């Protein structure tokens, strides 16, 4: 996908690329729909934060990263992990709390980690991942590597002191960080106008001389194009980039949320802009998607979800004797 000629982005999507992007969004959507079932079935516990509605951001942005780039995400990271290429089975097993999970069942839904794809969590402290991302980028810069660290966070995180300190540090040291802000207009139940004196988050970057752009986070191709530009900038060594993706969370913040803070009508309006529906429509319009294509993709995606679930079901429980492993690295005096 990252090889497709940039020219295509403006005009027609193209069938191969289109189906790939659609499939990626559907992989997240269907996977999470299953998660909801499994949560009700008490297979998954703890906090579960759904990404449904925001798929275009992960698919558009994370999809542009190179294999050796790094991702630092939040507790709402199912989408990023799937797009990044973490095994769906390992992800599902993690939420089951099984040993075969991508964090041995120690992390759960909020803490996916994967050394192979350089996914450094799954951080459940809002804003907590930003300084870590800055450090990963610092290590790359000091070691002369061209890698980029993509740091994902929400609109709420922008209010934390860590955002301010991390943006300044990254800018001061011209570090290769892509600050990817998923602005879904709410921090839990707090609407953005109650979170920020300046709600146009992209403007925050000026305070640090950080290059920035805002993009429609419901349009997967727009996100992809904006991310490409941002990544080129960052890879050129010019410093960090702040990309604000304007999106919306269709579901509750977590499984414990009565959604008292927003009107059903507002949710419906945004659902009318469902990134999957609109992108499918666009593909159909240009003749890149047929009913048969969609059915095939849905079937393949459904199979992936089922396989993931079966993998998790077949997983094992880590023996209780291993409880205190990994408090300190092994083979070293504690």
């Amino acid at each position, binding site marked *: 996908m990252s090889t497709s000629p940039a020219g295509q982005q403006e005009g027609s999507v193209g069938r191969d690329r289109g189906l790939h992007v659609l499939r990626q969004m559907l992989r997240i959507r269907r996977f999470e729909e299953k998660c909801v079932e499994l949560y009700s079935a008490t297979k998954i516990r703890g906090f579960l934060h759904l990404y449904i509605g925001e798929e275009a951001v992960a698919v558009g942005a994370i999809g542009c990263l190179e294999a050796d780039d790094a991702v630092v995400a939040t507790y709402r990271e199912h989408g990023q992990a799937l797009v990044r290429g973490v095994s769906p089975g390992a992800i599902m097993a*993690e939420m089951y*709390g099984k040993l075969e999970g991508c964090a041995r069942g*120690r992390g759960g839904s909020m803490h996916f980690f994967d050394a192979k794809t350089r996914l450094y969590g799954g951080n459940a*402290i809002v804003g907590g991942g930003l300084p870590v991302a800055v450090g990963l980028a610092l290590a790359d810069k000091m070691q002369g590597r061209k890698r980029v660290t993509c740091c994902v966070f929400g609109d709420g995180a922008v*209010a934390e002191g860590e955002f301010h300190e991390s943006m300044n540090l990254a800018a001061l040291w011209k570090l290769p960080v892509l600050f990817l802000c998923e602005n879904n207009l709410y*921090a839990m*139940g707090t609407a953005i106008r109650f979170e920020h004196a300046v709600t146009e988050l992209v403007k925050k970057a000026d305070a640090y001389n950080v290059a920035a752009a805002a993009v429609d986070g419901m349009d997967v191709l727009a996100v992809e194009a904006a991310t490409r530009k941002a990544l080129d900038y960052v890879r050129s060594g010019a410093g960090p980039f702040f990309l604000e993706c304007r999106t919306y969370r269709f579901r509750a913040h977590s499984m414990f949320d009565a959604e008292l*803070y927003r009107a059903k009508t507002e949710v419906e309006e945004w659902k009318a802009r469902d990134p999957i529906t609109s992108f499918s429509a666009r593909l159909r319009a240009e003749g890149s998607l047929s009913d048969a294509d969609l059915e095939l993709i849905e079937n393949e995606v459904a199979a992936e979800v089922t396989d993931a679930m079966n993998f998790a079901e077949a997983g094992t*429980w880590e023996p209780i004797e291993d*409880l205190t492993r990994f408090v300190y690295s092994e083979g070293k005096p504690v």
Partner: protein
Amino acid sequence: MKTITYREAVREAIREALKRDERVFLMGEDVGRYGGCFAVSKGLLDEFGPERIRDTPLSESAFVGAGIGAALGGMRPIVEIMTVNFSLLALDQIVNNAATLLHMSGGQFNVPLVIRMATGGGKQLAAQHSHSLEGWYAHIPGLKILTPATIEDARGMLWPALQDPDPVLIFENQTLYNMEGELSSETNVIEIDHACVRRQGTDVSIISYGAGLWKSLKAAEMLASAGISAEVIDLRTLRPLDDETCLGSIAKTHRALIVDDGWRSGGIAAEISARIMERAFYDLDVPVQRACGADVPMPYAKHLEQAALPQPEGIAEATKKMLSKNG
């Protein structure tokens, strides 16, 4: 008498405080429009309005510090930090300002601030969301640390905390919010400076607080059926500690076991053990024991999490060992 949940008891306490004293207001993340992360403050926004039920941005250091300033400015803020896990971001304000201003100003500026936070593990929320740091906070001079374990204390401790001229931290164990219990309709005055014996016994003193109280009472039941009479103490307040109640009990039982969900090493249980060592050494038939959280970041998997926390069975086992040893 009426039956309510711990959650409702806290809500009633907040509501009463807001009614009794116009200087009181509640401030924190999602306390208003969301209804509170644990639904504690649900409905209060409609009743008292956004000035007094104040949603804050994600800025723990700023809104906790703002609570300190508002207290200095004549208000009586109740600052809610959603959970103790996030309070680390506000720790500088709590330790270097709230706890020190009175002393540093030579007695000129006291800080009548109440900070509430949910605490504890047991909900499969993993390493960053399952801390039990109330005992750790108890290390800080200038702070008072309350850990209401019962419906009555959840209902009754807030008001005296607000009457206190100094900063008071109230830790509500998140596993208790759904607990139901009886509450006498008339508000009775509650002292926040002493521990309570929740179950009388003669063979051993089980010293606990918060969620640990209920595990200890369960353990005491098991022990009873094994012919062991355990006295169960609810510390209620971790700073200042009520030594007298503990020592009085030990003078009778000559054995003490301390139960604490917090990490064992350097936890509040160690402080209690050290004090018993210093003040009741010659009363002891056997060494004081601790049943604490394992020294490990909390794992998500349920079986591992349960193994990381003290459980009634383990508490009972540890107690039996103490009695089998001489005595």
